[in-house]
């Protein structure tokens, strides 16, 4: 086969040196490109030969789980700042659930599947709860909203929130001061039973009450 002089030169050169490169050029060559072998590092640290710094440590270098302490505010992570958090509420306005205890005198009420309206059969229980709360006028109450395990976790957190809210609204309509009632949703995350059948699901679709004397 005939070859041009350039082709011969190219072939000879290749026998000495060349690495084939194709379209989709590799990342910036390392300083020793053409001489060294270290090129595409699969990084534990920064990728060798890559343009920028590696993603702070790649697979091998993943940090151990951070402690439970949260560093608040502060500069954002690499690649873009995140504004310091607006707490979004007056400090101290949200009483921690940890300050509340189980309220023996206040009964749970339950909801239909995927609903957050108060059923008429539960109106009585709420009236009794309201009565108790009005005669213990300084007690704070926390209404927890829950959902059964069916459906998605995020939607169930929203559903639990609506259940807690309609319960609170109903108590307020019965004369309990809104300032005494806080709400929290646990979605499907804190079930009272786990049997995975309708009786259990019905139990989990609830508003639950705690008090702080």
């Amino acid at each position, binding site marked *: 086969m005939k070859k041009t002089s350039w082709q011969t030169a190219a072939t000879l050169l290749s026998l000495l040196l060349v690495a084939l490169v*194709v379209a989709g050029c590799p990342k910036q060559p390392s300083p020793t490109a053409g001489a060294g072998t270290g090129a595409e590092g699969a990084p534990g640290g920064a990728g060798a030969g890559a343009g920028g710094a590696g993603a702070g440590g790649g697979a091998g270098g993943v940090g151990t789980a951070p402690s439970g302490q949260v560093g608040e505010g502060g500069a954002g992570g690499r690649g873009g700042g995140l504004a310091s958090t607006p707490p979004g509420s007056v400090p101290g306005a949200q009483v921690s659930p940890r300050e509340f205890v189980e309220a023996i005198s206040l009964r749970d009420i339950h909801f239909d599947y995927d609903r957050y309206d108060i059923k008429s059969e539960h109106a009585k229980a709420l009236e009794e709860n309201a009565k108790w709360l009005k005669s213990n006028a300084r007690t704070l109450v926390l209404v927890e909203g829950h959902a059964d395990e069916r459906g998605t976790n995020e939607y169930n957190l929203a559903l639990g929130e609506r259940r807690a809210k309609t319960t609170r609204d109903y108590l307020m309509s019965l004369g309990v001061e809104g300032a005494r009632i806080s709400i929290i949703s646990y979605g499907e995350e804190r079930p009272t039973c786990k049997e995975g059948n309708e009786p259990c699901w019905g139990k989990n679709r609830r508003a639950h009450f705690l008090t702080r004397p």
Partner: protein
Amino acid sequence: MKSRLLACLLLLGAGFFSVLALPVDLHPQASDVYLNILASGAKKLNIAIPEFARPAGQDPMGFAKRLPEITANDLNFSGLFSVVSGHAPLPSAPDALKKALADFPGAHALLQGSLTIQGEKLMVEIRLIDLTGAEPRPILAKVYDAQARDHRRMAHKISDEVVYQFTGERGIADTRIAYASTASGAKEIYMMDYDGFNVVQLTKNGSINLSPAWRPDGHALAFTSFQRDFPQLFVLFPYEGRQQLLQAWPGVNIAPAWSPDGESLAYTLSKDGNPEIYVLRTRTGEIRRLTNHRGIDTDPTWSPTGREIAFTSDRGGTPQVYIADAEGANVRRLTFEGGYSVQPRWSPRGDRLVYTSRQGGFDLWSINVDGSNLTRLTAGGNNESASWAPNGRHLVFASRRTGRWQIFTMLADGSEPQQMTRDRGEATSPAWSPRIP
């Protein structure tokens, strides 16, 4: 001709490789190979991946065997390749190679590797060879090095390169999946390689943590956490080992979703009376409200253009999927079948969404953006919480089909489901990372 030689020199990339048959054409169209194979009626490209050769030295950990196995697994997983692997290394001298290839009739491509070990450091030279022509034709030669502990990542990078050569789009083997697991007793956020290896626990606060969402640069994960007793939004930086509180409004702060440019975060707050969707500009802290309806609005997901957001709303009486523009206007309903359709996730390709629907049990469905082509992807066993791989070809999701919640993957048409976790507890809420830079 002169400029071609110059181009050859200028494009020196990876390192030394002795090439015995240099084609004049330095940019062989590997993607044409793949397209031609598909055009001929084959569904997958047949590739042979023998064990790597070891020119010298000991390999007590068996990397010459393990590395190509991982790469072979990645290429099988991709759905694009049919892999034959595990055989002894083939010779590299062209005549000997051609002879040895007689044992692999029907192979369209060959991936050869040569492994050198120096202490804790591995170096691999790979050659990718097209076998569809009269003569074996090298497509790519490249050198990789890594610490031994990062050998899996090296193998993933090799398979991603092979996918890139043939399809023009990088593979997704070098990605991670974040998810929630109760293995420790409490629901915490974890991360693993896409294939289930290298599990790392990212939160350890003993409360309830869920809904991880990767920022598009892959460096940050937003998630919902009760670590301060209320459902609030945090961001964790998995490669820096730290967290930051992001949103702590009264009520819920849930369901985070980053915009494609990484500058905004859509999520759900109930601070104004009931769960609505808001968008946070992360650099400035500025928030704007997207929905305004007395029911539940949640589960935001962005189109890849960032111009539209799909979400769940019960404004029609039951939870269904709606689409609005990124300002919240022009709301239209997307789903009409069944009484419960939630958790929409917009494909990175932009053309359709996958979502969770209850029609009997909970299953994953997909639908085109224009509402056509409604397709059921899973059939039974309770399946939810899908997340797209960055190439839009795979989905990761949670399924209870084995009796406990575990993480599964499948192709975007619902085929080839594979279990990815064998969690001691229950694994849910998966999120597929971007390609790791």
